[in-house]
């Protein structure tokens, strides 16, 4: 156990749209909940990890730095990191796991704070990213053609799946329907009621084949996960959830040069890093900023063959809470809100602990997968209750 890493605490702020409470205070709210959950105190925390680190040019996307949090909590840390150049959002948790395994820290606060809805409403405080003049880096290859949003970039991969493998809108819709059904019984989720196929099919189009319900929406929230060293878990009161394996990759970061989503190499690698197999998995929490992304994860992780993701979703029964592979049981980003990756780790822990309440899946789940990232970047965690 000493050379292992565990998730020992989870916390979340209020989840809302256009909140007025500051992003720093939302982060502190989530930390307080996670610390209390674990039964720890702040003086036991000696590490902090966040994705992607504070982004001055795009504050709504990431308004709080690891340094900000260390300062206001009065932490004495031995290790911290806040980095965008890593394997997608959950990479921060994988890095924390490596740090505690290496003995660099005992209890690490991992956080992701988003403030995109509030920022949009208060541009004077949170200036939006410049997309019109002097665009550089990867943005210059897409923005000039009106492809401002990841919705446009991801939609093209979804369209390719439709043309090449026969994915249908009815199959794609199952992601949103499943998310809404689960969010409707998750008291913390933004979405409060289920969605019908008629609602879905009559919704306005954003970027074909995506309609409004295929795209997550800007959310204000902070999500925290505490990662603890194996030789420190006797200090916590919760059932420790082991980070049994991690994987992550980047595949032509510019988005439009990638042949495949990063979910494919990352999905293959995850199984190289563990003795578990896909058949052992009780629930999957798959990144769904856009409804197509879980299809890349289902295929990449080997739950079905390449091109078969649509058939896997058909009818929605397989991914329902009482299905063979319950997916996004908390509502995913289409239902819970755009928590940007960390919500999937949070929900995996809820389910493995058996604390899902009305949305708890049956059968004493012991193995879960949480993923983050769409397009070229990807990160995956295999989580177990031993």
């Amino acid at each position: 156990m000493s050379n292992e890493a565990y998730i020992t605490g989870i916390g979340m702020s209020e989840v809302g749209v256009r909140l007025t409470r500051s992003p720093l205070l939302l982060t502190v709210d989530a930390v307080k909940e996670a610390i209390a959950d674990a039964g720890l105190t702040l003086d036991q925390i000696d590490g902090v990890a966040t994705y992607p680190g504070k982004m001055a040019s795009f504050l709504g996307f990431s308004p709080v730095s690891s340094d900000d949090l260390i300062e206001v909590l009065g932490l004495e840390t031995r290790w911290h990191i806040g980095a965008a150049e890593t394997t997608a959002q959950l990479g921060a948790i994988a890095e924390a796991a490596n740090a505690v395994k290496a003995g660099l820290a005992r209890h690490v606060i991992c956080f992701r704070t988003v403030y995109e809805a509030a920022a949009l409403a208060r541009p004077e405080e949170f200036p939006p990213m410049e997309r019109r003049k002097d665009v550089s880096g990867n943005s210059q290859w897409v923005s000039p053609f009106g492809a401002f949003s990841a919705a446009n970039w991801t939609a093209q991969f979804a369209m390719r799946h439709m043309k090449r493998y026969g994915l249908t809108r009815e199959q794609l819709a199952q992601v949103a329907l499943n998310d809404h059904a689960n969010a409707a019984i998750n008291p913390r989720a933004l979405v409060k009621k289920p969605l019908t196929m008629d609602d879905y099919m009559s919704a306005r189009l954003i970027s074909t084949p995506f309609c409004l319900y295929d795209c997550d929406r800007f959310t204000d929230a902070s999500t925290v996960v505490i990662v603890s060293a194996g030789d420190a878990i006797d200090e916590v009161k919760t059932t420790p959830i082991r980070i049994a394996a991690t994987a992550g990759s980047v595949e032509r970061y510019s988005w439009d040069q990638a042949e495949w989503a990063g979910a494919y190499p990352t999905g293959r690698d995850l199984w190289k890093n563990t003795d578990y197999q896909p058949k052992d998995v009780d629930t999957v929490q798959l990144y769904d900023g856009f409804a197509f992304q879980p299809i890349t994860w289902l295929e990449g992780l080997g739950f079905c063959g390449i091109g078969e993701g649509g058939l896997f979703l058909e009818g929605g029964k397989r991914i329902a809470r009482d299905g063979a592979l319950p997916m996004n049981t908390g509502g995913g980003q289409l239902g819970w809100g755009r928590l940007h990756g960390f919500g999937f780790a949070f929900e995996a822990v809820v389910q493995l602990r058996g604390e899902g309440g009305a949305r708890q899946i049956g059968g004493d789940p012991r193995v879960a997968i949480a993923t983050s990232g769409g397009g070229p970047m990807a990160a995956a965690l295999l989580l177990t209750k031993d």
Partner: protein
Amino acid sequence: MAWQRSRPRLDNDNRAFWTGGADGKLNITRCNDCGGFIHPPREICRHCQSENVAPFAVAGTGSVDTYTVNHQAWAKDMDVPFVIARVKLDDAPGVYLTTNIVNCPVDAVDVDDRVQVVFEEQDGIWYPLFEKVQ
């Protein structure tokens, strides 16, 4: 689309791509040692790490690898709907360009459609758009 397109900041890597249209050229950076194409353009070849790279005028023909019809006006002056496509160039293996398919109805575009480049100039930038080959 009458909207003001995003204007790239020109540098030594990207200038030939964004201004080649003035001479009717679609310039893609190519390695003079291994012949591989490098896009996005860089000062070094991603295939063999040679620094002997230079812009090369490709034919400007290709096919639609995939596409989406964008219905959301991401900027106030953006006229929707319009087609965003990923075009696979005939003579630059491995290179895709995100672009717009213009001069046809939005529902007339499909994967594998044959397309050719057509430039639109705004403020000194020559945007490579594509239209269907009749």
